[in-house]
């Protein structure tokens, strides 16, 4: 499917989002499908008739200048922002419109925020424990619930994945910035999402941390679909297979990093402003 789409893109290097096109590539196979979505902030269209789709187990990077609608795109998917018009379809036929954030989480969409948002007062372990996917997250279930051995193993494995094994009982508030970013990624992973939304994961990280984060995301993409928003072109080149360029709330171009960087419109709109080393 992915190859097929790339062929399509090769024929049409600059592809404006259009509903028919998306229909053609059959959203039966997409994990998330936005169909003509518009988000209106008092006259400012953060998303303008946007059509966008991501396949199962795909790692998609979304780039674009400030105000292009990248974060709004994630907000619409996870229910934080409501679309004025259009459809948001998750998986085969689940319409996300009108669903609450926590319902969408339960469906299997996880979100990592731009600024690391972890529970500073709680330990790393407790942060992960709260994020773990459970059958019920109601008040009484959590009041009487006990951790199972299986859950503890999962948390321990997760601690290894995110490299915080030695910090299990440290207060999350006293971690470094990069560690907080990882902790939040770890928290989202434990929710077992089939779609992971990641907003600027490497902002403020050292080169080494950035590299490791890239490897982590790539290994995760073997199991789940991931949408990453990123500014750091170095990082984009490291992880990206397909890049989507947003501008003024619509898709300007979609394809491999080289293709996107070679595109005139993209250069004009995005790369022209923010010089990117080759």
């Amino acid at each position, binding site marked *: 499917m992915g190859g097929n789409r790339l062929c399509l893109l090769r024929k049409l290097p600059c592809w404006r989002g259009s509903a028919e096109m998306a229909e053609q590539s059959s959203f039966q196979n997409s994990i998330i499908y936005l169909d003509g979505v518009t988000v209106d902030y008092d006259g400012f269209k953060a998303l303008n008739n946007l059509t966008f789709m991501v396949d199962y187990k795909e790692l998609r990077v979304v780039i674009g200048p400030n105000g292009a609608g990248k974060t709004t795109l994630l907000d619409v998917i996870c229910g934080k922002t409501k679309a004025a018009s259009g459809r948001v379809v998750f998986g085969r036929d689940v319409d996300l419109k009108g669903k609450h954030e926590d319902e969408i989480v339960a469906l299997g969409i996880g979100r990592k925020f731009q600024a690391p*948002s972890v529970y500073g007062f*709680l330990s790393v372990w407790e942060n992960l424990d*709260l994020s773990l996917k459970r059958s019920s*997250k109601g008040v009484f279930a959590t*009041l009487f619930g006990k951790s199972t051995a299986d859950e503890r193993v999962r948390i321990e494995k997760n601690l290894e994945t995110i490299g915080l094994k030695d910090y299990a009982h440290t207060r999350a508030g006293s971690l470094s910035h990069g560690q907080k970013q990882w902790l939040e990624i770890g928290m989202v992973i434990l929710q077992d999402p089939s779609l992971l939304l990641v907003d600027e994961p490497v902002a403020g990280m050292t080169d080494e941390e950035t590299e490791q984060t890239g490897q982590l995301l790539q290994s995760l993409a073997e199991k789940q679909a991931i949408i990453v928003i990123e500014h750091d072109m170095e990082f984009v080149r490291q992880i990206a297979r397909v890049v989507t360029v947003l501008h003024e709330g619509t898709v300007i171009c979609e394809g491999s990093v080289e293709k996107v960087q070679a595109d005139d419109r993209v250069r004009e709109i995005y790369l022209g402003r923010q010089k990117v080393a080759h």
Partner: protein
Amino acid sequence: MSDGTADKNRSGGMAFWAVGAILLVVMPLLNILPPEDSWFHLSDFSLNRFGKFLAFGILALGLDLIWGYTGILSLGQGVFFGLGAYCMGMHLMLTIGKESVYGTEMPDFMVWNQVKELPLFWKPFYSFPVAVIGSILVPMAFALVFGFFAFRSRIKGVYFAIITQALALVAWLVFNRNDTNLGGTNGLTDFKQVIGYRLSEPSTQLVLYIITVLCLGASYLFCQWIIRSRAGRVLVAVRDSEKRVVFSGYTPANYKLFVFVVAAALAGLAGMLYAPQVGIITPAQIGVLPSLEMVIWVAVGGRASLAGAVLGAVSVNYGRSVLTNYFPELWPFILGGLFVLVVLLFPDGLIGMMRKAKSLLSRSKPDGGKPVVPAEKAAVLEGKR
């Protein structure tokens, strides 16, 4: 690290039982055994007054759950306290019977207001169990309805503080009115007995004191159980990052409602214990100012520490009762000043100061040994004297 937590839990548990033994055994014995002129004698008045402080401690536990742990500032706890106190007060009024000033079965103020028949909502309170259960369930029900709408509408932060303050004002106005039939400005008073025991007898007051200590202990353990459960960590998480809580699949509104209702129940319980020990409940104890004062207790004692909340309630009220003897007109300034001072200099309150002192102490010791008196125990002892 996990060993460290267990160790902390153990010393906390020891402090709990030590303080419990002092409150439950030593204090009553000091009241009963030594002769009245002895230095060690604890007067009936002092014991009774201390019982009142401990009742406030129960309320402070609830306020600490909602404010200290969950980060929701409620300026309306006085209302729930008042509902509890009035439920018990109504029962105590009805048991005065013919001993009243006018010698009728009706409460005096109703005779005075020329109310001919006992209002319907008073009638269930002839029953003692109804009064006891009511003084907890009525505040809970009230908090459930109010909280449901407030949290569903996502009212938070300073807006929640303001509407709860408005609630306190409304309650104050309603309880002040004569046609509400709750005694108006003078409130409910002149209680004579509770389930047949004379309230003027020191032994009755001693038993009430002991019941208060037991209720405080049970409330403490209950709150501790909540805090140590996963739900307790969700509460802290709501305070730290509500957005993240939502995206971890929880519904913060439900947790807030839960903790608001628990806090209301504890405030009601405190009110229930307050009424027979103090012998009067008036609107002046439930309005905007008392509700604010309750927040100061927790701030002074130390937010997000259950021991701190109780310590704050006891020490601020002790300070109040001593200082109002000497400088009655200065108390509001002292209280306000104390609040500002604590917020600016000691954001973790008395408990935070003790912890700091403890860590300095153990660091200065060459062997790194622990101080002989556990900090929490020392804290409570110091708060009392």
